[in-house]
């Protein structure tokens, strides 16, 4: 969620139950402002909170002008001091995916794995966050548009989805570089608007049904929750510009999803 509209966003996303305590909220507001200035980001998003056994990690992302460029990730333990997470390498990604279980809450904690590889928790946090972000960060259709020169911009004339559009999964896109777009048939591509439909839509996600879409507050708010990564909540108030997502959870994938549907 955008750091600029943090309070409203937290209020709207509160339907999932997990939010932030007032002191965290207050410190977030100030510290994110400073982060934006120091790192010169165009936009700072508060990504969410990963619950650890001892302490929680608060994660923020910084975006540059091009919305689809790789985002910088920052973490903090107390919402006041933020540190950049180091970029990940392939092997670290592979390693962290093997280590299962909850996060401790201590960035220097080392996981031991049977293959005698120690994985630093800091890296693991980063990996998880990247993985989750790639998997489930969402944007409503029309919020970003692509210019012919390449960079994607925030669409300032985005007025929100209409109610009927808001209930369909196809109006939401993954907030990342498209993966499946090229696999579409020409027939499908003919209906797409290249300036708006340049990301993967949610409706082809596997497994089908891994998103729960609900209207809350009597149709005034549409909430999408991911069932594959429980804890990811996306909210959007139809016909307004407010949308955002937040992740509050343990950082673990729900591998039992096929059994649970």
């Amino acid at each position, binding site marked *: 969620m955008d750091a600029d509209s943090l309070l409203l966003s937290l209020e709207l996303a509160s339907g999932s139950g997990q939010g932030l305590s007032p002191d965290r909220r207050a410190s977030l507001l100030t510290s994110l402002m400073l982060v934006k200035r120091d790192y010169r980001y165009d936009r700072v998003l508060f990504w969410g909170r990963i619950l650890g056994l001892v302490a929680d990690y608060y994660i923020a992302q910084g975006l540059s002008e091009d919305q689809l460029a790789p985002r910088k990730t920052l973490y903090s333990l107390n919402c006041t001091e933020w540190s950049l997470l180091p970029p990940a390498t392939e092997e670290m990604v592979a390693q962290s995916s093997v280590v299962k279980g909850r996060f401790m809450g201590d960035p220097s904690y080392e996981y031991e794995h049977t293959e005698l590889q120690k994985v630093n928790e800091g890296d693991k946090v980063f990996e998880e966050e990247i993985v989750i972000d790639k998997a489930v960060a969402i944007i409503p259709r029309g919020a970003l548009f692509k210019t012919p020169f390449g960079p994607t911009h925030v669409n300032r004339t985005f007025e929100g989805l209409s109610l009927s559009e808001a209930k369909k999964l196809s109006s939401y896109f993954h907030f990342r570089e498209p993966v499946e777009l090229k696999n579409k048939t020409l027939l499908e591509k003919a209906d797409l608007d290249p300036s708006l439909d340049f990301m993967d839509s949610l409706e082809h996600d596997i497994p089908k049904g891994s998103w729960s879409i609900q209207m809350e507050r009597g149709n005034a708010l549409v909430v999408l929750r991911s069932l594959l990564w429980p804890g990811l909540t996306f909210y959007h108030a139809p016909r307004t510009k407010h949308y955002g997502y937040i992740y509050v*959870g343990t950082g673990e994938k729900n591998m039992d999803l096929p059994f649970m549907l």
Partner: protein
Amino acid sequence: MEDSTSPKQEKENQEKLGEARRSWEGKTAASPQYSEPESSEPLEAKQGPETGRQSRSSRPWSPQSRARTPLGGPAGPETSSPAPLSRREPSSTPSPPAPARQDLAAPPQSHRTTSAIPEAGTPYPDPLEQSSDKRESVPLHTSQSERNTFQQSQQPKPHPCGPRDVSYNNAKQKELRFDVFQEADSNSDCDLQLPAPGGSEGAPSMLETAIQNAKAYLLKTSSKSGFNLYDHLSNMLTKILNERPENAVDIFENISQDVKMAHFSKKFDALHNENEMLPTYEIAEKQKALFLQGHLEGVDQELEDEIAENALPNVMESAFYFEQAGVGLGTDETYRIFLALKQLTDTHPIQRCRFWGKILGLEMNYIVAEVEFREGEDEEEVEEEDVAEERDNGESEADEDEEDELPKSFYKAPQAIPKEESRTGANKYVYFVCNEPGRPWVKLPPVIPAQIVIARKIKKFFTGRLDAPVISYPPFPGNESNYLRAQIARISAGTHVSPLGFYQFGEEEGEEEEEVEGGQNSFEENPDFEGIQVIDLVESLSNWVHHVQHILSQGRCNWFNSIQKNEEEEEEGEEEDEEKEEPDYIEQEVGPPLLTPISEDLEIQNIPPWTTRLSSNLIPQYAIAVLQSNLWPGACAFSNGKKFENFYIGWGHKYSPDNYTPPVPPPVYQEYPSGPEITEMDDPSVEEEQAFRAAQEAVLLAAENEESEEDEDEEDDYD
């Protein structure tokens, strides 16, 4: 010639253009001035016959519609349009000012003046399809300003034909768009015909032609959408000038799209929005009813009664504390739930009520209230004792009359364990759920041990509809309401904790350790509870105790010995003898007794079962202790030393670090008991057969020998 006429024209122009004259017209008219007369004349000559049909100078404004529109555009029927201009054939003369013309295309087009100005200016009746009001004010402004600028840059050509067009201030649609050209034509015409006012203006020059061609192109309607670029651009510019967004050039394309979309939206206004907003209004109405319920009854008397015996907990206070912990729904949502709970307590005879939590579902969520009815007011529903656990043993009786007895099933279903009575064990509280505050509360049925046992083995999402079937293996006995109730029971048993000493056992008998019923059931609040330091609560888990009974693996809290009942039923039974395979003695299951500290809880693979935290590190003196369960993610408890509360919000499932594996079906039951009759044996090999035959023959021989001996003996006797 043109030079000579130009100053005159200028003067006249300025007069006429004082009002609503479009400069482009001047431009197009002016073009002939610049282009060579020779070249223009042949053009004009061409146009001559074209314009032949046009209104002549005599009656230049006689309405004629240009049925002939070579550049497309379905300008059809005649109407009282101003002298329609014929489109010129697109000539190949590009003119530099042509692009400049296009800029001005907008204001002229959008300019609509209804005031007939008979004199100078030619207010062009705006032949626009889409009548957007906003265009009227601004374009007028802009056109004027632009006109002014243009007057300086070019010499607009006044012509007597101007006044002619004045009278055609009507909103004729597409045809009028051609006014532009027609005017130019007529301008040129009147120049041809009426040399008087401005002298012979001169044939339309190449520039003018080009401009007119360009404009004609702009006015060309799209075959797909019925728009044309001219109108679209004018709309867009209008919108931009109205709204004045920042960096408009960067979002130009988006504005373009919006304008196009806006063209269509009005038609659907009446129909679409109604349907969409209906559910919103419904819910709002229901929630409004919540707010009004107080007023309907209220007088002072009622108020006192309410304050006196209030079964309602202070939800807002608990919500405040939970918010410190970072858990909870938003404030206004909580307030609505508060009101819904109040409604619940008003309609049912409830002694105590608590907001248990919220369970998320796929389509809808559940808001759960934990309720304790008043003594004696328990609403007992006549439930069908669904002791459907007993399989049908009657299948064995089916074909008994036949000679070959079919194998009888020796399977005897385990004795169904009866559910616990209300107010005891897992059914201590009654639970009500609703999907949203404002909707009616539904009571959940009491839980049966079998349901708990199976709920432990399956893991399913809730859909949000209470009557949804739960399709799983092992098959769940019940639908979603039963599953929900079972999960609620499990969560309560696993995560409802309180500070040590808050509750104590009621009677003294409880101190004797009797193993009969497996633990005390009753507890009550300790009036002498003095509170525990928050720090202590955070540091040590032994300061918290469970105050809900643990559920045994049987599915009940109090052990039920099914053996005794079995013996009773044997007398009625038609079973066979072999059922005695059941063990005669089942171990009594024992669970941790009530009020056990949670430090005794089992770990989950090296993960402690609870996480404790202070709500705030910055101001520790007012912080509260927060306890979050790792076993049931979403379960939370807080205490500030004196007060405590439990809450759950989540999907309703237990946490397990390993993946869920569904239980395997049991092995297939043996049909026939193994015995010699049906046991397969190998066919004898050749050697065995021969040996057997040899043995048989030997026996026969021996028998014969004996007979022969006997015969011989007999014969001897006879001798």
